[in-house]
């Protein structure tokens, strides 16, 4: 009987959003929703299985921008306020459902209990820093934690700027070291964006492996032997793990993936949009901007606006069926592959962590079932991490992955189209100028050092893949455009002032206060000679 291995890699990433100048800021909810609906419930699930002594291993990439926000005392405080507000809404909802909509009472109570549990976990268990939860699971051997580019830049579009590529990689790794106390073995390529040669930078920083898009093997200039079912070694020795698009699509396809099942919870029907303004006003954004509250009572039902109420027990039965189906597919496919390849297959699956719990409400339960079924039934599908796989299976084929990404079209067209191509003229110029500043004013101290460090932060923040993605996707475009332009304009303040031999101190202290990311930044990282 052949042995099949599956490596789950979850990419936990959010762009750096922190606006203390406002009492509440809409885009900060991206973080709060992710902590509340994905990260804390994921940690609960992992800890439950650990307590039961179930054997499992997962890989999680925690982006430096996310880590920075998760460890920020102000944002931690604001997250507590978010939880308290949603607890208050939950209490109000339980009362309302008791009298007006008893069919929703079970879910209202469920959400309220989850919020209360989140408050306990966040404050008592993790003392507001949930990275401790991930660290502890890593220490016990259940998680492999890895890093990604400093601000999650889509790297192929910065190929001509090796200093900037190096800064993204080096700072990503240093940030990981600061947060977790050791160096990472793996590196999540943002958006699976790979270009030939990128592995050289990764190797120079001690990285052993990275993940790539599915088509990078079939489109390789070399004859890859096992397709996406085994990692390859790049000519410099760093391993590349290709995603299995088919297995990933069982979950992630927006037309046929498990989360589309009609009995699962409908994400888009939320009381933030459904209930009268007078009732919901205090729990949405000013001035009367309706947003998701997390209180959702309807099932997907089908392609109709006539939804049926969500039934959690029916959904849970589906979760078990989908987990079994998933493992069945892997086993069945693996049997055929093993005999053709004469090697056991490895399925590498990469997902955004926020898919589980936040977008796909039942996703964490599904992961739990997959772990339970693979562990308890001694099935031939074993959970591994890329690092553990490399230890066991040292001999890999040497080949070159092809230029690729996981975006639409499989290359760079999402991050370089009519909506966002204009940004590169400015970002590239900022990188060139940052390099110039780092050479002209190397090893400065005090004010000038801080001024230059802030410039480096602004350049890196402008490189985040989130802004061009949002522009392409046409959601929150105003905010993305403002953020991008602000970082570039802020950079120009430093450049303009340094060229005039000046430091705008007022600007500096305020900019530092606002974008407090990477406190250990050293602008000399942009010096090509460094």
């Amino acid at each position: 009987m052949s042995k099949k291995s599956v490596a789950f890699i979850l990419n936990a990433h959010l762009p750096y959003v922190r606006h203390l100048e406002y009492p509440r800021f809409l885009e900060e909810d991206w973080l709060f929703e992710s902590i509340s609906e994905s990260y804390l419930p994921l940690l609960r699930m992992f800890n439950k299985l650990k307590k039961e002594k179930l054997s499992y291993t997962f890989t999680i990439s925690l982006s430096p921008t996310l880590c920075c926000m998760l460890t920020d005392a102000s944002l931690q405080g604001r997250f507590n306020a978010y939880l308290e507000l949603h607890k208050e809404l939950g209490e109000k909802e339980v009362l309302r459902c008791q009298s007006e909509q008893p069919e929703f009472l079970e879910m209202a109570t469920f959400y309220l209990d989850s919020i209360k549990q989140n408050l306990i976990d966040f404050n008592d268990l993790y003392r507001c820093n949930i990275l401790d939860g991930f660290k502890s699971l890593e220490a016990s051997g259940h998680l492999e934690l890895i890093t990604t580019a400093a601000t999650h830049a889509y790297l192929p579009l910065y190929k001509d700027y090796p200093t900037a590529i190096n800064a993204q990689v080096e700072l990503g790794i240093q940030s990981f070291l600061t947060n977790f106390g050791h160096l990472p073995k793996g590196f999540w390529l943002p958006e699976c964006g790979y270009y030939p040669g990128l592995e050289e930078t990764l190797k120079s920083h001690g990285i052993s492996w990275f993940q790539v898009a599915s088509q990078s093997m079939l489109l390789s200039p070399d004859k890859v032997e096992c397709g996406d079912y085994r990692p390859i070694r790049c000519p410099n020795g760093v391993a590349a793990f290709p995603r299995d698009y088919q297995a990933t699509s069982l979950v992630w396809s927006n037309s046929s993936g498990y989360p589309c099942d009609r009995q699962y919870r409908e994400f888009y029907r939320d009381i933030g949009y459904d209930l009268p303004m007078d009732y919901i006003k205090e729990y949405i954004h000013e001035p009367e901007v309706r947003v998701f509250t997390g209180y959702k009572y309807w099932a997907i039902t089908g392609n109709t606006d006539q939804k049926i109420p969500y039934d959690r027990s029916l959904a849970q039965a589906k979760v078990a069926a989908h987990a079994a189906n998933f493992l069945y597919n892997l086993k069945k496919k693996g049997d055929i592959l093993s005999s053709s390849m004469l090697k056991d297959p490895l399925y590498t699956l990469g997902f955004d962590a926020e898919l589980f719990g936040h977008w796909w409400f039942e996703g964490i339960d599904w992961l739990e079932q997959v772990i339970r079924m693979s562990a308890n039934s001694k099935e031939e599908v074993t959970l591994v991490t890329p690092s553990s796989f490399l230890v066991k299976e040292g001999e890999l084929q040497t080949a070159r992955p092809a230029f690729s990404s996981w975006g639409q079209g499989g290359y760079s067209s999402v991050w370089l189209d009519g909506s966002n191509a204009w940004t590169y003229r400015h970002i590239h110029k900022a990188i060139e100028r940052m390099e110039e500043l780092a050479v002209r004013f190397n090893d400065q101290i005090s004010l000038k050092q801080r001024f230059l460090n802030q410039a480096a932060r602004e350049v890196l923040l402008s490189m985040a893949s989130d802004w061009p993605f949002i522009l392409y996707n046409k959601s929150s475009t105003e905010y993305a455009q403002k953020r991008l332009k602000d970082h570039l304009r802020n950079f120009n303040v430093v450049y303009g002032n340094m060229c005039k031999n000046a430091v705008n101190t007022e600007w500096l202290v305020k900019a530092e206060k606002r974008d407090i990311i990477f406190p250990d930044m050293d602008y000399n990282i942009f010096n090509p000679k460094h």
Partner: protein
Amino acid sequence: MILINIDSLSTTELQYIAQQEGFENWQSLDREELIEELEEAYGEQDDEMLASSLKGKQIRKRFCNSLTDFRGNQQNVNGLPGVEELPEIYAETAIHLLLRDPEWAFAYWSISPATKIQVFGEDDQLGGELFLRISVTDKAKTETKSFDIAIGPHDNQWNINLPTLGKTYSVTLCYKDRKGMEMALAESKELQTYAPYWGDHFDDMAMNPQLFNIHFSSVVTKEGEIVDNAVLQEIAHTLSKGVL
């Protein structure tokens, strides 16, 4: 060196800077004295002198320079003086080429005012033409072909079709005067595309269903939908004639 708005800093902040600058008496100075001393120190010392004289004294490790705890900031940073709109283009003559996918690249360029005058004349009296010259070099770098794309004086970006996989491309921003004399204004860096192995060896796969399964089963959904990628879909299309 000029310190802009230094009087807006808190006393603690000024003391911190003075300490960093190596003032021995930083604790005994009052606010006014701190500002005065700092302005004097920065004003007197030449930038390079300051940098080189202090270089030996400070041993700093990368990522070890923490921020201080600053006073509150209620104002939006972007409303501050000194923050200006981004220019539409930059005053330089340069061209950049970005690979969008193996079939398309995106070029953006700028022409400095001085170069513009040089090639078009003060009032555009020279009436020349701008064009992009795309150079295509084969894998062995033995042969380079090129083709031109006419562009207008106000264009500053273009999507360029890359006709063949496995070639190296670069683009030159060129000018042609009325007499037909050509001049290169700026040249981009090269970008390389790679021909997939299976693009030239699909016969092997077409003859071997097992090989086909190894390579294609991961890029097609259970419903038979192939991953969204033009090159891969072309290989699949070619193969479908022999396998499916």
